[in-house]
């Protein structure tokens, strides 16, 4: 029987961490993820888990320590946000190239500047080419469920890549919602014990991790890493199926909400998908054929699957909670349209930028976007690409 509770996103992830009880957690506090190491420390102090918590002096150190612990053979974990993730940048790439299946719980917050502590996806998107798997949550339930699936994905021998479990700062991390928790033994059985084949603290079987690689080898290593990222797609789906069998909740690479017959689809990631779904429910009552494609797995990027899902609509709104500063749109705007082009899906697509640095994004904003798409298709209205929603 599921345990009915109410929790914030940070509480939910911390609760999942207690249940998984990883071996080592180095962490450094940064808003809005600070509560995660704080709550885990409390669990440890109360004797409810026996993870080795390492208070470090920076995020550069927390990711370095997590890499060292994981290479040594310990299941490792850290948490961060925003500038903390930026300070880990060099190590993020090493964690992936050394093929270490560690997990980072990211609470998405904007990157400076201007300095600001609120939600957008610029931290996670900044790390999009570091070789990490990235899974985004709409709400607290998904943040909890995604964390439980993280190690089984990362540690699969077809993958061996680090996983970033992302949730929206404050909106998800601090807002308390109803949640269904799983029993401790169910979670422990699902995640299992970590039994690496090769690790540093393995007497009589010496290894070297992350050796210098000359040009004759480095390119091949990068290709192997890329193949592992491609492989992770099927592993993510397999783990999601096992999770559904255990918990009853279904996950995929993305969720298609009322898109089956939709003329207009909004592609969106994170907590704002909930807002978009509410707007879709209301518009459906007015007879509008609208739907939401909520992207869950951003890395690996499911370009082909998205193209397939969007091919029958008349127009798609691609929503970016991040600016790319490339003069041509946000990260999703670039990658989704590239995916549509490569898979020969020739629909209308408009890229919008919303919610930067905690700017509100409401049902009326979603309504306006859908109205604009319809105006474009039906009346031939010229629509501005890469438009900022709620810009003064």
């Amino acid at each position, binding site marked *: 029987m599921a345990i009915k509770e109410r929790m914030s996103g940070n509480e939910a992830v911390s609760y999942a961490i207690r249940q998984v009880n990883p071996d080592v957690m180095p962490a450094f506090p940064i808003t809005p993820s600070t509560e995660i190491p704080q709550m885990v420390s409390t669990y440890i102090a109360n004797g409810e888990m026996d993870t080795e918590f390492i208070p470090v002096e920076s995020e550069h150190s927390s990711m370095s320590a997590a890499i060292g612990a994981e290479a040594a053979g310990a299941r490792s974990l850290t948490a961060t946000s925003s500038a903390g993730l930026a300070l880990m940048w060099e190590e993020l790439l090493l964690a992936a*190239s*050394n*093929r*270490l299946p560690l997990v980072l719980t990211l609470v998405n917050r904007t990157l400076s500047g201007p300095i600001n502590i609120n939600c957008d996806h610029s931290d996670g998107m900044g790390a999009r080419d570091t070789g990490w798997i990235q899974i985004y949550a709409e709400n607290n339930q998904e943040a909890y469920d995604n964390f439980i699936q993280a190690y089984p994905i990362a540690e699969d021998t077809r993958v*061996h890549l680090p996983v970033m479990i992302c949730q929206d700062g404050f909106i998800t991390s601090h807002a308390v919602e109803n949640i269904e928790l799983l029993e401790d033994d169910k979670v422990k059985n699902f995640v299992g014990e970590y039994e690496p*084949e*090769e690790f540093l603290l393995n007497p009589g*079987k*010496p*290894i*070297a*991790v*992350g*050796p210098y*690689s000359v040009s*004759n*080898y480095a390119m*091949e*290593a990068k*290709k*192997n*890493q890329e193949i592992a990222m491609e492989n992770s797609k099927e592993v993510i789906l397999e783990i999601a199926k096992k999770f559904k069998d255990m918990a009853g909740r279904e996950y995929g690479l993305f969720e298609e909400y009322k898109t089956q017959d939709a003329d207009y689809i909004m592609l969106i990631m994170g907590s704002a998908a909930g807002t978009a779904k509410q707007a879709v429910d209301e518009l459906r009552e007015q007879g509008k054929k609208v739907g939401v494609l909520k992207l869950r797995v951003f890395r690996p990027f499911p370009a082909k699957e998205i193209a397939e899902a969007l091919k029958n609509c008349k127009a798609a709104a691609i929503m970016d909670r991040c600016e790319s500063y490339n003069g041509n749109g946000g990260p999703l705007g670039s990658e989704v349209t590239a995916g549509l082009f490569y898979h020969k899906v020739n629909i209308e697509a408009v890229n919008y930028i919303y919610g930067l640095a905690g700017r509100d994004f409401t049902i009326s904003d979603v309504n306006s976007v859908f109205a604009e798409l319809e105006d474009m298709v039906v009346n031939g209205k010229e629509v501005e690409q890469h438009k900022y929603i709620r810009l003064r």
Partner: protein
Amino acid sequence: MRTDITKINEKTPHDRLTEGLMVFNGGTSKLFKTGEWRTNTPVFHADLCKQCLLCAPVCPDGSIPVKDSKRLEFDMDHCKGCGICANVCPFGAIEMKEGNI
């Protein structure tokens, strides 16, 4: 997964390399002959050497082998010609010459 890395070379295809280029052995740096990077070369004058052994511990590459309390010739496969040994030698028994000799 454990692969004999001595069987891997610069012609090995990507799918036969180790994961993350992990090396399954200890002390494998000996196989990597870094001496070819050398642009200056130390020359050992055994007749001037008093076997004080100040040179051996300061070598950053462990390229001055010591046996039975006596230093031997340089390990030129790994010496990078930094000249620290020549600098600490009180007896002028190590002379630095230009080029990779």
